[in-house]
């Protein structure tokens, strides 16, 4: 049983508010970024980075992964690793599908 001292609780509550502040700032940044005149790739990359940062903040401080045993963090990370793996597994099919769409003869042109 973990019992928290008043000092620990006060420190945790200050940390919670700091994390909230950063989450709000990062969300505002995300909204701002989509209206910048950058390329879609640059905007997308920055948004992914910001979302990953926000998700990490929630997991580390609100879900207390920062103070849990490392094995628990591995359990939490497993789905993320598997999803990245899934994306890479889909890549060859996606490339072929996009090429087929781009090089396909338009239906109207085929009938002319």
């Amino acid at each position, binding site marked *: 049983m973990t019992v928290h001292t008043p000092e620990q609780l006060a420190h945790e509550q200050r940390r919670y508010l700091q994390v909230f502040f950063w989450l709000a700032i990062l969300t505002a940044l995300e909204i701002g970024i*989509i209206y910048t005149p950058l390329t879609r790739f640059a905007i997308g990359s920055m948004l992914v980075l910001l979302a990953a940062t926000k998700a990490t903040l929630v997991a580390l401080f609100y*879900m207390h992964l920062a103070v*849990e045993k490392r094995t628990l963090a591995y359990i939490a990370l497993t789905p993320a690793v598997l999803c990245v793996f899934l994306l890479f597994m889909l890549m060859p099919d996606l490339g072929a599908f996009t090429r087929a769409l781009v090089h396909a003869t338009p239906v109207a042109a085929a009938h002319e």
Partner: protein
Amino acid sequence: MSQAAVAEHEFGVEPAESPLTPESWGKLGMWVFLAADAMSFGGLLAGYGALRYGDPTWPIPKNILGIQLTAFMTFLLICSSVTMVEALAAIRKGDQAGLRKFLVLTVLGGMMFLGFQAFEWTKLITREGQSIARDNFGATFFILTGFHGCHVFGGVTYLSAVLGRAARGVGGAIVVALVAILATLGVIVVTASTVSGLAAVAGALVGAGVVFAVVSALAGGTPVYSAHSNNEVEIAALYWHFVDLIWILVFTFVYLI
């Protein structure tokens, strides 16, 4: 061999303490459940990415979806995560009234989120002509946000059950969870039928108010949670933060990119 494993081997009984989460087995169970649930969301997001990448005619989401409203919904969920950690901090100090207050505020945030989602969906379907069957954009949008919305609904019910249990044990948990389900459905129906964001706010305030009134009426027995026994609150908090974390990703991938 660890002490827990030795105990299991020698006495054939389940060790009382999880080596990963010494507080409780329930916490480890919740983490394993969340990992599995994250894979469901991961599969849906990967499918969304695959369909979108393969379709050069995919619309730019911000041209169709209301970014300002969903940014506010994101902020709302972040605020509800703060009230959730404050609820846990309150009970860790033995503050029963603080636990109830912050849990009700968290439930309010969840109800308001669902109200805004009902508003957004109704607007998209009735005014913009979007639907789950129209195209891949509509299908992925409604499935992803709908699946997340179901999680928020489940979270509101779960937190209300914890709230009821804090007030009056298992009976209280059942009563308050049922009240919260009816109140949340009421918020969704009223918002969808009026297509008004104001109705979502007002409905959620009334719904959370009713939950608070029922909890206040039930409170008075021996406290179930205390500064030394609050694992159930922490486990419920894990679920709620997970719902917030997933929305952060859904908001970025479905609305912003």
